[in-house]
């Protein structure tokens, strides 16, 4: 990696016109990169440009004669739309809730698994299973097989436990209606905790143990070691987990679509835009919403990328 760093930093400030040979060499270097780069630009950037154009248009597929220029009307409608504002808040709650809870649970479980005990490999394998269930299947499983008030496993277990104590009228809450957003969050936490656990466990296992041992001999207690040695070491893994988790959960569609169909105040941004586009067929408004979401994402992503970038520098400097 050091040779790479030298090559990139050793560029002279004022470059003379490169000779033909030099230029062809440079293109030879770029050539392997080009297919992937061009493909990505065509498939991800061009559609976004189209979205930008459509966002300034009056275009509803139900009224094909009324297509035209709309100025900033679509943006006005999106900004004054209560549903959109709710969707932004829901997205924030959903993402923050899932990422934080699964990070904390994942950290606890990673610490439990970072010890030698009988069947450790088996427990680790069991823990991964939730992450390997197809998201739609997992959401269906939670909705029908676990949350269902009549025959779901949760209420079934409550009936069983109550039955053990001789009670025949156990509480049978309707989980999804009573706490719709939490219902979605828990289903997602179940899927994402293994992900966080895997990353943090890998981080824990890369921890220099001799230093920990030295601190212990010097009389540091467990909490002190955890707070001032383990946690700082895990920091970059926690950041990585939070960043990657956020990227995926902000975009979550499957769980919201399946468990609540966006009802009961659980419609997040992807679901809301999907609805405006797929059900209301209001292309202009859907595009304006998408443009606003992209701008918001860019602002947040700039900070997020800085995190990755600092991780990356550590790696490059190694």
């Amino acid at each position, binding site marked *: 990696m050091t040779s790479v760093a030298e090559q990139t930093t050793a560029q002279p400030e004022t470059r003379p016109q490169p000779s033909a040979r030099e230029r062809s060499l440079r293109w030879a270097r770029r050539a392997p990169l080009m297919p992937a780069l061009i493909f990505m630009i065509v498939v991800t950037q061009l*559609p*976004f440009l189209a979205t930008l154009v459509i966002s300034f248009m009056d275009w509803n597929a139900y009224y094909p004669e009324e297509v035209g220029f709309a100025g900033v009307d679509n943006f006005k409608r999106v900004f004054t739309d209560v549903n959109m504002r709710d969707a932004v808040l829901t997205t924030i709650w959903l993402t923050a809730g899932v990422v934080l809870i699964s990070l904390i649970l994942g950290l606890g479980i990673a610490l439990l698994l970072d010890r030698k005990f009988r069947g450790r490999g088996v427990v680790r394998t069991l823990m991964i299973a939730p992450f390997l269930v197809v998201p739609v*299947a*997992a959401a269906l499983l939670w*909705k029908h097989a676990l949350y269902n008030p009549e025959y779901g496993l949760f209420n079934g277990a409550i009936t069983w436990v109550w039955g053990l104590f001789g009670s025949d009228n156990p509480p049978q809450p309707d989980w999804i209606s009573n706490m719709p957003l939490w219902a979605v969050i828990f289903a997602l936490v179940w899927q994402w905790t293994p992900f966080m656990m895997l990353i943090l466990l890998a981080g824990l296992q890369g921890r220099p143990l001799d230093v920990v041992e030295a601190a212990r001999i010097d*009389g540091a207690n467990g909490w002190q070691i955890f707070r001032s040695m383990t946690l700082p070491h895990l920091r970059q893994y926690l950041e990585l987990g939070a960043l990657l988790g956020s990227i995926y959960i902000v975009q979550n569609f499957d769980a919201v679509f399946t468990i609540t*169909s966006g009802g009961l105040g659980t419609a997040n941004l992807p679901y809301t835009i999907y609805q405006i586009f797929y059900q209301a067929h209001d292309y202009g408004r859907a595009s304006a919403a998408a443009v606003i979401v992209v701008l918001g*994402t860019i602002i947040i992503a700039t900070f997020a990328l800085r995190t990755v970038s600092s991780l990356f520098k550590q790696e490059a400097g190694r």
Partner: protein
Amino acid sequence: MSITDTAPVPATRDERGRPVRKRKEGANVWLSLLAWVVGILFVLPVLWMVLTSFHSEEDAATNPPAVFAPLTLDGYREFFSGGASPWPPLLNSLTASVVSTILVLLLCFPAAYALSIKPVRKWTDVLFFFLSTKMLPVVAGLLPLYLFAQQTGLLDNIWLLIVFYTSMNLPIAVWMMRSFLSEVPVEMLEAASVDGATLSRTLRSVIAPVVMPGIAATALICFIFSWNELLFARVLTATVAETAPVFLTGFVTSQGLFLAQLCAAAFVVSLPVLVAGFAAQDKLVQGLSLGSVK
């Protein structure tokens, strides 16, 4: 947590004079037990899904649950031959996942080469461009792609999904491959260039063997993400190119006694990912962290 439970008061000392922590033994048993309980709690919904899929519809819908009900294959029979056949969606998912994974590998390998082994100028910018496309909400590109497909008659065509899945996974794959390629020892490359090997020969016989595990990890992650994708498949396909997750959305609304069939369907659709993921657990970690955790 193991560390928090080491008592500062040494009970005895071992032969080298270091304190031996007596209490640790007892605490360890409890922590191991806790680890087992947590592991079982997390896997319980999956086990419940598998068990229910082998129960009859009547036994699946009981409260309290009929854990020891007789086993039957009715749920699977109903899923495979009850209504619309799940085979075309399953085959579509397989085609889309496998073909897009191959395309991703073909595109990401040379790109990662140009970003690590013989880096272009400003290679970090290029790398971050790739990652930034992953942060764009996919829903923002959904409408133009839909309109494009409508105009060109590509709606409900599996190739459109393949192209989209390739673009969805390419940034992750480039990051992963770059991280693996940067581990190829420089001496080996120099030796190859002294021997006068061409680029494609260097790629095939020097670099590929070293990064084979990395390629496997990348392929696994791309396959899983393509197999799981729902939003685009739902919007861009209908009856012909429908994928397995779209087929599963038929179970979103309750339809009387259908829990066993639903569990059978969920299990069948998840099976390829479960098998691939369990078989390559360590690759999973590498892939999910974009290659930064090895």
